[in-house]
Structure formats: C-alpha cells, structure tokens
C-alpha cells in the first residue's frame, strides 16, 4: 500500500507521480494541485465543478468540512463558522450542513441523537415528516418487544 506524508494544511509535500496521474484523471494539472493544496484531486475537481474557490474550500476545510459538504453549505448560504457549535456538540462538522438542508436546529439534532439516530438518518426522517416521538416509537418498537419478553 502506497503511503506518503501529508502533514499540515500548509506544508503538504509536492505531488508525486501517482498524485499527478490521479490529478490528470480529474482533468487537473500539477499547477492546479499546487494552487489548491492541500486539497486532494477529487476535492479540487468537485470544488471547481461547483464554483467553490480555493480560499473558500480551505476555509471550510479548516472547520473540518470537506468539499462535498462545503459545496452544499454554500448553496445554503452557510458560513464556515456556523459549524463550530455543531462540532463542539460532538457532531461531525458536515452534519451541520445535513441538518441545515433538513431545517434542523442544533437542539433538535441533539435530541434526535440522544434518541439513537445518527444525524443523516434523522435528517431523512425529518424530511419525510417524522416527529421525534413518532420516529422513536417506530424505531424501537421491535427492540422493545424483545425487551418485554426478557431477551
């Protein structure tokens, strides 16, 4: 397995032949990799495709939000710093974007998590019109049945 060191955001090493080949696959040049470092080729490809600038991508990356989520966040007019409370609450930074798409607040997301739902699952359920109470009852109905019979 090929491994190489990519330490910090600002000191990523120059691309090797393998990375250059991968970049070419995405229609990128060595110059692109340099210009966008430390983002990976696939991230650069997706950012360019969706009009995310290198600076914006890096700002989101510093908050722990990858390009895929950053693109969605920008569509929602979110700012990078908006994910911090989510990260502080133990969510993945990208979860903030998922929640925003579903119209969930941090308080609501926390309640869903405490009830046993990971955030993307909760977001899908919220979009489908579920309330937390209904969803909790439905999810654990089967499990509770076993609990009642002593299993």
């Amino acid at each position, binding site marked *: 397995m090929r491994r190489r060191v*990519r330490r910090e955001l600002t000191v990523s090493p120059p691309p090797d032949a393998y990375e250059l080949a991968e970049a070419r696959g995405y229609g990128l040049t060595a110059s692109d990799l340099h210009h966008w470092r430390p983002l990976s080729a696939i991230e650069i490809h997706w950012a360019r495709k969706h009009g995310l600038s290198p600076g914006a991508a890096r700002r989101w990356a510093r908050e722990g939000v990858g390009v895929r989520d950053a693109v969605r966040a920008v569509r929602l007019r979110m700012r990078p710093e908006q994910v911090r409370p989510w990260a502080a609450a133990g969510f993945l930074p990208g979860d903030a974007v998922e929640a925003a798409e579903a119209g969930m607040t941090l308080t609501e997301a926390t309640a869903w998590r405490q009830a046993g739902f990971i955030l993307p699952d909760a977001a899908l359920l919220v979009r489908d019109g579920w309330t937390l109470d*209904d969803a909790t009852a439905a999810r654990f109905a089967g499990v509770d049945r076993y609990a009642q019979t002593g299993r």
Partner: protein
Amino acid sequence: MRDRGGESLLGTLRRDTDLLEERPGAPVLGAERDHHPFLERGSVTSVSRMRVVVRPEVSVPAPAARALLDQSEVLIPAITYLLPSTTQGVTGVAWGRPDLRPATVMVLTGPALTPRRVRNFSTTLTTGTYFGMRGSMPPSSHRTTCGHPAGPTLTARYPRISVVRECDRRSGHMLSSQRNKLLCETGPGTPMGELLRRYWQPIAGVSEFERQDAKAVRIMGEDLVLYRDGDGNYGLVDRHCPHRRADLAYGYTEDRGLRCNYHGWLFDHSGACLHQPFEETRHPEGTFKDKVRIKAYPVAAKAGLLWAYLGPQPAPLLPDWDRFYSRGYKQIAISEIPCNWFQCQENSIDPVHFEWLHSNWSMVLRGQDGPRAPTHTRLGFDEFDYGFVYRRVRADTTEDDELWTTGRVCLWPNCLYVGHFEWRVPIDDTSTLSVGWFIDELPGDAPFEQRRIPCWHAPVRDEKTGRWIDTHVMNQDYIAWVGQGAIADRTLEHLGESDRGVIMLRKRMFEEMEAVAAGRDPLGTIRDPALNDRVYLPIVGGLNRAAPGAGPQPFVFLAGQPDEVRSELEQAWQQCAVASGAS
C-alpha cells in the same frame, strides 16, 4: 369529496408551500396522448411516479369534469385528487395512472378554479398505490392555452404533494414500505426503473455467443432475447413474437436478424419485421410486415461485455472506463443472486462490512483464532462525476494511506469499482445479475493482447450441502445480501454510524429519481464524445499496478473459476514473464 368505491381514505394531503423548482425549457417526459377526447385536442400530459409534470391545456366545465370522473375507472385509480367545490361543485380534477408507462395524469379545470384556490386546496386520497407524486406547473413560458371555451386555463402552480411522506409517518415504519419500494422496484414505469434505464447495463459476455446465437434474458422485469445475427449484429428484443407470442429464445438467427421458429417471422435488431413468409406468399404486395414491430433495445459490445440500453432515446454514450485498457488478463464472471439489486448496491458504499464479513468471518471460517482485522476508525465520502468515493482509516492505517487519500468507488448507479467492476443489474425485483469484470496484472511491460475475454457463470450454492458458498469474497457478500431477504425490509432497520454511506446513497437515489422524472439527465450519464475517452476512475494503487511477484494469484472473488480460465491466466503470465526476461 369523492370516496372511490367506498375505499377507505388514507388521509388528508398536506399542503406544502415548498414548491418544486421551475425548470425553464425542461422537456415534458414521456408525453403520451390519452385516447380521451379531451386530450385529443393537443394537450400533452406527462408524469412519473415521483413527479407529475402537468400541462393543463385542457379546460372543461365542472359538469364535464364530473362526467369524466365517472368514466375514470378506465383510467385510474392510482391517484385521484379533487379540488374542493368551494363555489360550484367539482371545479377541477386530476388523476393519473402511475402503473402505466408513461403514466398519465390529466388536469381538468373548471371555470371557478383560480390559482389561489388551487394553492389552498386540501383534499383526501383514496387507497391505492402512491409513489411520491408531486405536482408542479411548468413555468408560464411553457403554458399553452387551448382551453375549453367555457373556462380558463389553469395558470397556477400546484402545491407540492407529499403523498408518500404523509403515508410514511402514518405507517409507523422508519423507511416506509412505500419508500422502500421506490428504491427496489425497477420494472417499466417505476421511478427506479426509469432511473436505471438511463444507463447502459452489462447483461452478458461477448464470449457467451461463441457457442450460442440466442439466449433468454430478463432485465428489470422485462423478458427479452439477446442474440447475435449472422452479420454480427447484436439484438435485444421482446421474448415473445408479436405474431402468436411464441418464445423467440428458441428462434434461429439469420444474417439479418432473428426468425421465430413458429411461423418464420423475421425481426432485425432494430425491431423491424423483415419477413412474414406466408403473408408475403399470399399478399406479395402487402405491407403487413411494415406495420409490425417488436420491442427492441440497442446492444453494444465493450470490454468483453454486452451492454443494453433500455431507456428512451437518445441513449447516452456507453462509458469508456480507463480500466478497460489496463494491461492484464481479463475475465468476466456472472452470478444470479436471489435478492433485490439495491441491497447489493448498498454494499458498494459500506466500508465497515469488509472488516467483519470478509476479514474476521473468513478467519472464523478457516478455524483460526488469531487477532481480528484492524478496526475501522474513520469513514469519509466524496463525490465525483460518476459516483461516490468512500474512504476509510483503519487502526493500522492513517490519513496518508491510499485507502483514505484515494478511496474506492461506488460507481453510479449500480456498480462497485475497486480495480475490478461489480455491477448489480436487476433481473427483476427479487433477483439480481451480478456481473464481475476482473483483471490480473501481468509481469513486465511487453505488449500483451488478449484475444478474447472469457465469461463464466459462478455458482452461488454448494451443490453438496445446498448452502451458500462462503469461501470467496463476493460469495460472502452474496450471503449477506440474500440474508437480508428477497427484498430487504428497511422498515425494520436501525441505522448507525457505519451506515452513513448507505444513507447518502439512498438520499441521492431519491434525488436522481426526481431528476429523471423532471426530464433531466441523471448523475453520471455521458453524452459528449470528447469526455468519453478512457474515462478516469479513482483506483487505489494506480491504474497500472505492478503484478504480484510470486506469480498469478488465486482468484479470490468468486468460487467456481473454470480450469481453462485459470490455465489461460497462467499461460498469459508465462508469456509475459518470458517476454519481460527476454527484453
């Protein structure tokens, strides 16, 4: 409100002001005239199960609408919603038949109907099959006015109708059975069927036609015959002759097509009827054959596979993946898995299963007591033009490892790509054609040309025990998939952190079904020839990976590799090793 035939009501439609996006210039999908006289005036109405696109070019007065509704047993009753009689009886009605392909929804408006009233209606649904119908109006620039003189043409945007979602919550299930159906059902006219029909699907190996001319195939619920005629054209046509429904899988091929063995009608790969022997004897100048066609789909050969396109024309390009050109010995293995395709594809974006299903379980099966496989510690997902990339960090790797920096590909819409390809092609809703395309790197760099790519059929059951074969990687996957049931009941799931990819996949599938219903090309279709030249796919280890030094490796993916295939690989290896040594 109308209660159709005394059926119970499911509930009140929720009015949702979150209207679907408008799409200037969007084509109307699958437009089809209905035979009803009101629609013969040139109205165009279309629908899919996910999205209703309505052009209310027809207006009729309320009495006519009511009369039409009374006749509607012919047309419905998948969905019927009535606009309330706020002023004078039934002011409008829309109905559809999503079980048809393309389904038909018509909107009739009455003189009392105004945009405001449309936006504010609430109504009831009758029982029936509801598949997430949503209605929207085309933008005004696409409205036409050929309404009935007695009433205005509808000019409102319809409220978003969250039929399925309303039903979800009431069902008490997590992912409702209705939503599950959306993911699983691939027959003609189903949303997923429409989505998958926008892609070329591998359905057989070219080498299969060295020993046969025609074979019956079933793809997405359609019974078809795949054949190669004497001129070398491949055809994929309806399994049944349109004459008297004889089985064309028993037909015989000629230079220009496939001839039915019953009365000799001959069809070419485009579906044209070329010859009707007795008819032409009796009526040499007759044109009966010109009026008869058979359902036919285009077939193309690439990379040793035969690909079929079952969707609307124009077809997208058949992807020209770069891996097809890698130097190495290639083989194709096909299995039939008795379960729904989507649970197979969910496996394509489920990194954690590898640790348990393949690594740890294999150890258990071997009777080993050793340390378990390194645990997964982090998952990541990216997206690119042709699917998702999933990335993983394990206890024995870091984020500098290619498993994280490059990742592996969940190739849209129904494939896994990890250096080899595994397509999951629906045969029907309870069985899946697993099509694997594999490559073994060969030593040296001397040119190697493979004359033919063998295609073999991999067994899934142990003939002696009747149990599923568990010795090989994909066989282990099969055990997991069929264990989920013929169609996995997702209403009973409890999803966790390891399922983030699966959730992402489902969400995107729903989005892409909507895209297709709205007339857009779904993710990953290629139409620009300039972009379809050795299309890059991420691959751990790079495209031109070194061959293992120890010689050809055992085939670990599927049980049942024929001896002759193994032998061919060894010969290829020897040939390349000698050439490499000589150079």
